[in-house]
């Protein structure tokens, strides 16, 4: 037709080349001359509910705040589990076990940010304020941000302490109502943080006391910069931190609820470390040469709790029957991919209170069906299984587990519906007791077995929200309290073994597994350690 070969043929290649050049300008081969600013990005799994871990027990809140923003009087050594000095440089216990005197360190500086500048260093006033806030119901700050201190209440710390006295500027004396061998361990948990009394006063004067938990001030290695919901939390380094720390200038929590996206970001280097690799991802991480996977046996338990306050789950036979309907070994493979051991009780084998010959439920669908019919649960009975939308060390995929359990329950004639909400909504509704049963679990905050038995199943733990089975038994409470009056491990173990027997008889919850804990990070990161007792610590983490 009219066209011929020489039509402006150089015009087109020129444009194409221009475009390609523009695109390539954006890509640089493997960061040779490309300098990233100094900082660490951690891919976290969800939004923190607050920046004060005392107000919440969720691992997400603890990971963000506890070891980054704050310090405690005492700490756990990550390798040996022993209690080491924190803000308290030394302490003396009286012979009757009732009085503890703490010597505080000098010259510890609080954070200085755009909203607060400290005029004095850390001293006893801060300790007293931090303790009295949750201890004294009439304290002006007690009701701020809700007035609920779940962990502290579940271990009864408020009732345990009878008095706190200021001896001098750097010495504090705490008196208990009765001797309790787990007291020091409780002071080293993620929840016993020290806040700034001066900041609290400043906020009280400005009539904005709740900012103490949303715009926090502490003595920790990182100070709070900003938080955008569902996006990130930014921290800057605290240049005057009292302990030795790495040279990292920025720490960012990149909030990424999807675990496959976290892994992808870890692989491309957009995150330096990630939270909660799912078990199907562990092999990939091990295979990639630029990634490292650390693993440690965990002090945790994943379980299926029945709401014993709702019929027919108040009947222990019904609960036992439901436990018999599930094949735990199948769950091990499908959910944990072999990175966990089946649980026979709520105490993991790595704890000294573990009883190796406990009898737990076995898989028996016919027996389960029979037991259910005998107790008035007919075919077609419908119940809900609440499944967490997030991953936790003790249960990497509660939704998938619930789907598998649906099948087992259908075999015994039970129609199970899976219910789930966004994580903080989920926990809020669980606290109201709307569930029939829930797939959840517990990670220990310290090495003491009391940290398993008390928060999960004692009567007082119902109010604090950690007793998801809403089970209340006076005999059980007595056993647990008695165990604390002895300091000898064998004596205590005796009481705990009785408690384990009681749990397996009554089955308020069905223990499922104890999982390994993992930490996945890029090779160039140094100083990162798994903390078996609580939240992640970035103090010593650095990148070259």
């Amino acid at each position, binding site marked *: 037709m009219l066209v011929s070969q020489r039509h402006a043929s150089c015009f087109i290649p020129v444009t194409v080349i221009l475009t390609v050049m523009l695109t390539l300008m954006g890509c640089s081969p493997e960061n040779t001359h490309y300098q990233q600013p100094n900082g660490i990005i951690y891919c976290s799994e969800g939004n923190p509910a607050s920046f004060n871990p005392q107000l919440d027990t969720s691992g997400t809140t603890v990971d963000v705040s506890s070891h980054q923003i704050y310090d405690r009087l005492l700490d756990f050594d990550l390798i040996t589990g022993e209690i080491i000095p924190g803000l308290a440089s030394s302490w003396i216990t009286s012979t009757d076990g009732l009085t503890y005197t703490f010597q505080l360190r000098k010259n510890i500086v609080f954070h200085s940010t755009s909203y607060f500048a400290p005029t004095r260093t850390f001293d006893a006033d801060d300790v007293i304020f931090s303790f009295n806030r949750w201890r004294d119901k009439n304290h002006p700050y007690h009701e701020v941000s809700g007035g609920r201190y779940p962990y502290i209440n579940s271990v009864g710390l408020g009732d345990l302490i009878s008095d706190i006295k200021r001896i001098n500027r750097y010495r504090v004396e705490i008196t208990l109502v009765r001797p309790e061998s787990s007291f020091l361990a409780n002071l080293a948990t993620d929840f016993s943080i020290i806040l700034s009394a001066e900041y609290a006063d400043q906020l009280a004067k400005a009539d904005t006391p709740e900012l103490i938990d949303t715009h926090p001030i502490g003595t920790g290695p990182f100070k709070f910069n900003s938080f955008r919901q569902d996006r990130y939390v930014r921290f800057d380094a605290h240049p005057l931190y009292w302990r030795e720390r790495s040279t990292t200038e920025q720490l960012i929590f990149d909030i990424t609820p999807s675990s*496959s996206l976290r*892994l*992808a970001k870890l692989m491309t280097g957009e995150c330096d470390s990630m939270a909660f690799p799912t078990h*199907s991802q562990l092999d*990939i991480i091990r295979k990639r040469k630029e990634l490292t996977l650390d693993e440690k046996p965990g002090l945790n338990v994943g379980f299926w709790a029945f709401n014993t306050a709702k019929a027919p789950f108040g009947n222990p036979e019904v609960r036992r029957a439901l436990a018999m309907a599930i094949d735990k070994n199948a769950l091990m493979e*499908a959910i944990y991919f072999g990175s966990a051991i089946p649980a026979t009780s709520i105490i993991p084998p790595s704890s000294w209170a573990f009883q190796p010959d406990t009898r737990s439920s076995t898989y028996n669908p016919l027996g389960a069906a029979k037991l259910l019919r005998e107790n008035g649960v007919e075919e077609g009975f419908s119940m809900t299984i609440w499944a967490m939308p997030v991953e936790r060390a003790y249960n990497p995929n509660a939704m998938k587990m619930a789907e598998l359990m649906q*099948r087992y329950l259908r075999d015994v004639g039970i129609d199970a519906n899976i219910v789930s909400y966004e994580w903080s909504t989920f926990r809020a509704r669980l606290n109201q007791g709307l569930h029939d049963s829930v797939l959840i679990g517990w990670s220990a905050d310290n090495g003491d077995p009391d940290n398993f038995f008390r928060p999960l199943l004692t009567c007082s733990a119902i109010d604090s929200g950690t007793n998801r089975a809403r089970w209340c038994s006076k005999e059980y409470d007595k056993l647990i309290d008695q165990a604390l009056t002895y300091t000898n491990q064998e004596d205590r173990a005796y009481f705990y073994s009785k408690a384990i027997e009681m749990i397996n008889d009554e089955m308020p919850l069905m223990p499922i597994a104890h999982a390994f804990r993992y930490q996945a990070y890029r090779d160039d990161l140094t100083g990162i350690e798994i903390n078996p007792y609580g939240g992640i610590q970035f103090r010593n983490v650095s990148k070259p």
Partner: protein
Amino acid sequence: MPRLNLYQEEYYPSPIQNTWKEFKENHAALLSLYCVIFFIFLMIFGPFLAPYDPLQQNIDLLLVPPAWDNNGDISYLFGTDGLGRDMLSRIIYGCRMTFGISLVLVIISMLVGVALGAMAGMSKGLRSSVVNHLLDSIMAIPTLLIAIIIIAIVGTGLVNSMWAISLALIPQFIHQTRDIVRQKMKKEYVLAAQLDGAGKIHIFFNSILPNMAEMLVVQVTLALSVAILDISALGFLNLGAQAPSPELGALLSEGLTTAYVAPWNIALPGAAIFFMMMSINLVGDGLRSALRYRLLR
């Protein structure tokens, strides 16, 4: 009056036959037509062809690679997903759902859209002018956006997404029909029919519709490809079909969680959507060029 049939081989093809002849010469389009027929076949006979139940989970066989991989198994041709469900069966059922639902939606929107468009085209006056302007404005908004907005209001779920996409497709049909009807209304044969005393409905069904049929078919293929894309996009965003439904977009979204261990979980459903859309687009393209050439000659 009977035509004098002097030569046995003399043959005057009707317009539709002409179009088909043009279409046949376009090999790519013909091939795609066979693909489309294959998909329709899959849609009807899928349940008999699928080797396994798409919802059946198999704990022992999680994330098996497809048969052509070293670790694959021929009895699971496309491998399995994270819960042990056979991918081939899921994809067959998924094609069935995606294609079938889109077909149903397009037919519904076509019926409603053509009816409304015919009414709009045959009416006159200010009322229709305002409606026309509003319609034109709505048409400028992409169908997926309209569907997302409708879902935002009524909530997520497969049925809601079906309503949303149907509603979003209707304006296209109305606009096209109205334009054509308006055009045809000016023709003399319509005038002749009117003079004969035919009522509006009679005119529409007897005079206008047969002449519209081919344009309508092209419109349908266009709408079908848009519907498939929208349904799978909504399924992918978890606003439409929800897990464990085997709809192709939902399959893609589920496959995301295991994407790095098992890339076939996203490659295969996506490829299925791609082939579906490509064959329908090629058929539509072929039809359009065939029509254009027929009209030119």
